[in-house]
């Protein structure tokens, strides 16, 4: 899904700049950026992105996993984690939070694109199946 609008939630300014430049040639638009969980929730409400690219360690007291649970619960958006955490415990918590993808830092363009496309496709399938079950009911 090209032209998908993506919200970047990341507290490292340099990484945000690199992500913006990496996403553009891959055919995605950066809807907004945020560095804390609160900013992320506000940005989702305001900019209505198609997907959220979420770091786990964020500025402020709330981490990316908690923010992802809130975003999934309130706005039903797909969240892809982009993090340096590669331990099993963090990955399990991310999966439990409803992660649609998990990209490890340092990221590569092809890896990023594969994770985003998979997440968008999975989200679309999930939405269609939800609509179908609503119609059937």
């Amino acid at each position: 899904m090209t032209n998908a609008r993506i919200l970047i939630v990341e507290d490292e300014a340099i990484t945000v700049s690199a992500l913006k430049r990496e996403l553009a040639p891959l055919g995605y638009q950066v809807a907004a950026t945020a560095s804390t969980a609160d900013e992320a929730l506000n940005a989702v409400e305001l900019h209505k992105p198609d997907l959220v690219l979420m770091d786990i360690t964020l500025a402020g007291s709330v981490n990316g996993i908690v923010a992802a649970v809130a975003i999934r619960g309130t706005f039903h958006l797909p969240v892809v984690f982009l993090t340096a955490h590669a331990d099993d415990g963090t990955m399990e918590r991310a999966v439990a939070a409803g992660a649609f993808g998990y990209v490890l830092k340092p990221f590569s363009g092809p890896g990023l694109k594969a994770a985003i496309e998979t997440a968008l496709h999975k989200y679309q399938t999930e939405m269609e199946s939800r609509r179908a079950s609503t119609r059937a009911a």
Partner: protein
Amino acid sequence: MKTKQLSNSDLFITPVRFGTSAWEQSFAPIHRTLELLSRMSHTAATVLAVVLVAVIAWFDYVTGDFSLALFYLVPVVLATWNAGPVSGWFIGVLSAAAWLVGDPALSRAYGHPLLPYWNAAMLALIYGVVAHLLSMLHQLQAELQERVERRTASLAEVHHRVKNNLQIISSLLMLQAEKLSNPADKAVFDECRDRIYSMARLHEQLYSNGEFSDLDFAAHLREMAEMLVRSHTPKGCILALDVRADPVAVDLDTAVTLGLIANELLLNALKHGFNGRPAGKVTVELYEGNRNQMTVRDDGYGLPAGFDARKNAGLGLELVLGMTRQIRGEAKIENDPAGGTRTTIFFPSILSFGNSENRTPTQTDLP
């Protein structure tokens, strides 16, 4: 576009956990039982210990002259380990009393009627001392475990920060490269990012498998080769990648250096081996032995006639030779008889390292 050919070596890519011997595994049922016991509540452990005391006392009574005094240590240990020293002392005194009641032969064995009581008191004291020492040991073990967990957590945090910083460096290189107009200059920055990526993946493997010293290099080599072929295959060329890798244990320093060597060799093959060709094949091999062996082979153009690595080495090859010397290894760069270039790196096995003071540099075999 690339295709990946499956080979028998695919069977060997499962990361191995070094240091778990068959001998250690044979104790697994005992460890599991102890783990189950350690999860018991204080009350349940004390009740179980009382029941055990009763059972042993009954056996003591039935067996007559045979003394089972030593067996009472089992409930004492159980109660102390799970419910603390007070419970241990209580079970110790109870055991001594049970021993006194459960062994009627005692009354016949001693001349003075008070002697069995004296012996029972001595037993109670011994059980109590055992309980006390054991509780101290338990406390020490708990403190040690907590310390190990804290250290493991901080080590994982260090690895996380290392990777985060590598991400920042990689991002900076990307942003800097944007200012350049010459594609060749940009490619230099991309190569640097690939090197950083390779090092980051190693750190990832280190702390995701929980072993902070040695790691299986095969898994890393495979992942890196796939990533580089995916991102650096020349336009219009269909490349097949064949990775045959034994699980080889290497320490972190060697792994980082060896990873960078593999990175350079693969990039070299991808950059110079196939330009203008419709198809090709890259083979990566890793074999374990007295001297481990890593080979990167391509069926591309091969080395130019009269090529001398000492004179004609670019930065990539210069790094390969330097890093090979660093890991006390030997590099062999040659034209493959079947066509293309073949580079083999021989490096010492982790078992043959021993004292690093004893390592001796080896030669580099160049064309």
